[in-house]
């Protein structure tokens, strides 16, 4: 390959997401799911892979998979079967994982502008605990296997490579998470591992249809790490390509602490999974009753929610989307909205533009927004109150009172403005001479005296009024 420093490369990103389902029992046995229980206390001969045991499919896991498929607008297979995916690893008790291969329960679908390739059911592996000091594999001599997690139901969702920017990948994953959260099928907690995301990353020549060699980034456990990891990998690949080299197909791990990528597995070491249909299970052919039950269980999904925010509440499209596509924000917004006298648009702006709002009780946030609308407190002062609410909680009115942040009465403010005008003669001269920016000095004086409680816009208009501008 020749070097061409001017050639533009376009990122091509696909995601593979594993969702742990919040059913009561495991995928193929009746053990209850574990939440930090003592190791190896949620097991049985089946999830331990003892000789002679047989799996039996969890009906609720199938129901959740159907709900996920419908929420992602996937084609639901008339009949799907399970396959054995074979590989040896201590966290894999049967040395094969029961998964789905070429006949998955859900086929092609769509979520926002990313196409879904497929979604299928499978069982989770056990947990390997490493005995070394740092807890990392490489320093340990022994590991201990905890089978509590083994057999937990998973849905694996694979997207088409429709993402072209790390940030877009992060945003889309947030949308997927919001969707799954609304469905109530999973805790979708990335830190705890109930939502896990791998990314397939490659670069292609801009405008070309030919895809470059892709690498797989495994298991990034936060949205930020996902974005940073993809970004780091794109940089790495670009450097190789610009240098005239070729990207090798491999599996990589991104270390967020150091920001570096390390290889886990090269193509040569890639597994031969030797898939074949699972003979111990029969096919899943969703009946009309099963399909109806899944469809009826679908709540309002983010896209529909965004549409409702636009049409019923008059929110601009961007804001509506932002609120609906991030479940915590949307939930906070709707709860705050139920308070009396809150203007939907104003509330929406506060929720989407002030990061501290996310940590405030909905009722308190609503009350604060109303106070601003009624001019009982200036926007600037309200931001201060928001900060207090976010870190300590409490009642907005009380905080305003305690910290003396209440807006001035109109008369009081006029008096202060008059004084400021009187004390800033030079600025007044400049304004009258045409230098309108000089108003800033007078505004500043007023703000200082009111300790920021006045509303900047209102102060400006009062000054203008007084000076008959």
């Amino acid at each position, binding site marked *: 390959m020749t070097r061409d420093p001017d050639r533009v490369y376009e990122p091509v990103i696909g995601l593979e997401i594993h969702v742990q389902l919040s059913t009561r029992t495991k995928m193929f046995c009746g053990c209850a799911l574990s939440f930090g229980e003592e190791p190896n206390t949620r097991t049985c001969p089946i999830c331990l892979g003892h*000789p002679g045991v047989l799996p039996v499919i969890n009906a609720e896991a199938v129901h959740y998979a159907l709900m996920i498929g419908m929420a992602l607008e996937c084609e639901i297979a008339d009949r799907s079967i399970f396959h054995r995916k074979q590989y040896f690893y201590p966290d894999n008790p049967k040395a094969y994982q029961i998964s789905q291969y070429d006949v998955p329960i859900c086929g092609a679908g769509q979520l926002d502008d990313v196409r879904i390739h497929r979604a299928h059911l499978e069982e989770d592996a056990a947990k390997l605990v490493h005995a070394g000091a740092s807890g990392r594999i490489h320093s340990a001599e022994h590991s201990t296997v905890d089978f509590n997690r083994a057999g937990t139901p998973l849905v694996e969702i694979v997207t088409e490579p429709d993402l072209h920017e790390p940030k877009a990948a992060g945003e889309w994953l947030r949308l997927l998470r919001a969707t799954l959260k609304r469905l109530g099928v999973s805790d979708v907690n990335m830190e705890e591992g109930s939502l896990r995301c791998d990314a397939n990353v490659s670069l292609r020549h801009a405008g070309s249809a030919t895809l470059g060699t892709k690498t797989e980034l495994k298991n990034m456990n936060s949205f930020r790490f996902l974005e940073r990891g993809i970004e780091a990998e794109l940089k790495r690949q670009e450097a190789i390509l610009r240098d005239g080299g070729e990207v090798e197909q491999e599996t990589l791990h991104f270390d967020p602490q150091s920001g570096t990528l390390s290889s886990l597995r090269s193509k040569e070491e890639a597994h031969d999974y030797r898939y*074949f249909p699972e003979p111990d299970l029969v096919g899943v052919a969703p009946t009309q009753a099963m399909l109806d039950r899944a469809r009826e269980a679908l709540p309002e999904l983010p896209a529909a929610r965004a549409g409702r925010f636009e049409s019923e509440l008059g929110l601009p499209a961007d804001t509506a989307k932002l609120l609906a596509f991030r479940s915590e924000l949307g939930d906070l917004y709707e709860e705050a909205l139920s308070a009396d006298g809150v203007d939907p648009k104003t509330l929406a702006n506060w929720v989407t533009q002030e990061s501290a709002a996310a940590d405030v009780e909905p009722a308190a946030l609503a009350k604060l927004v109303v106070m601003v609308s009624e001019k009982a407190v200036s926007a600037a002062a309200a931001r201060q109150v928001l900060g207090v609410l976010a870190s300590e909680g409490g009642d907005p009115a009380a905080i305003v009172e305690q910290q003396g942040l209440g807006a001035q009465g109109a008369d009081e403010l006029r008096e202060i403005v008059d004084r400021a005008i009187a004390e800033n003669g030079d600025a007044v001269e400049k304004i009258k001479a045409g230098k309108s920016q000089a108003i800033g000095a007078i505004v500043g004086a007023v703000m200082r005296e009111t300790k920021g409680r006045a509303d900047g816009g209102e102060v400006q208009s009062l000054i203008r009024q007084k000076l008959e501008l």
Partner: protein
Amino acid sequence: MTELAQLTAAQAAEKIRAREVSADELWTLYRERAAADDLNAYMWVADEPDGGDGPLAGVPLAVKDLFCVEGVPSYAGSRILEGYRPPYTATSVSKLREAGAPVLGKTNMDEFAMGSSNENSGFGPVENPWDRERVPGGSSGGSAAAVAAGSAPWAIGTDTGGSIRQPAALCGIVGLKPTYGAVSRYGMIAFASSLDQCGPLTRDVTDAALLFRHMVGKDPCDSTSLEFPEDITLPSTESLDGVRFGVPPELTGEGIEDGVKAVFDETLKKIEGLGGKLEEVALPHSPHAIAAYYVIAPAEASANLSRYDGVRFGIREGNGDLLSMYEETRAAGFGAEVKRRIMLGTYALSSGYYEAYYGRAQRVRTKIADDFREAFAKVDLIVTPTSPTVAFKLGERTNDPWAMYLADACTVPMPLAGIPAISIPGGLADGLPVGIQLAGPAFSENRIFDAAYALEQAIGFEEGPWRDA
């Protein structure tokens, strides 16, 4: 004492119910015999009876070591499971215990049910009580030898390619492979999941029907098990009037040794004498059955045996690193035949070879099932010799795997199609027993028992070590 030992299981059960014979007496008799067995038929003998009250109360049952019995050594004929005592009991054994039959002991077998002579056991071969220099057949060689020698009134075994029927034939007793799905596989250490079935090995057809009646039933722990659509009746008819028997040239000509052929031809005459109608029916794909079987069974076995890895149970070897643990454990624990089949199965499923081997074999399987369906449109039952030869000498075929595999030529097509088949003693050839096989469509066991019973009466086979023991 001798008369007690001559009772069939059904007769003994009746006498125990009528209080003419005591369960204790019967237990003591058989327990002593089992403990004194010198054919190497037993791996373990119980101290105390553990059956309940029920129709089978008091009639001790020998159980192939492939069945998990909680707390009882269950090694599946393999060194890799040496020391293993399962934490649960197989459904079929539980059902029989509940029906009253106490577990007498665990019988020796070919390792992981792979073999046709019981020479593949990790714990030494079993001798045929008819001639101790000959094999009893396999893989349920221990169960067959025990029943034939009179050290157990009846036994259960498993049949995947002929492992109940062929040893029954070589030992001059009755053995049934049920319809696939009729008996639960839960707790039966898996060899080839889509072929394995549990079945009775008994002194006569009535005993087989009685034992079978208490084994059948859909088990929630086995997704491939089915409800038997009729009650199992004990046979009583002595006529074969109106019963049409198909004779397939592919399984009754070439490869069948003269002595066996002679007994088979005699049997055909007896069938006609009882009013049965004989008709030639082709099973055109049955010559390919062994080839298909020796792809499918090893493929499934290779996956089923991957769990024997030294982590959770069984033996462990190795020099301290993970790869060595896997490789050395499995090298030390598995015998030659098992290794051969694991290699064959792994190869057949490996990347690039799946379609040519496993894919094709599964299609051959469809054709074999179609052949039977077409045949059973014209006849009620199919009759063949069970084994092409009488019991061969120990060591005679151990150096030629394919020659050993050919022992299954007549028995392998039925499990591929999932249909039931029984073997009953037809006569002697050179002083050694010859088995006659009757096969029928799925769930035709009652018809099979009826025909087998009538034939049994007409044949009047009165030979066998158990009759003089």
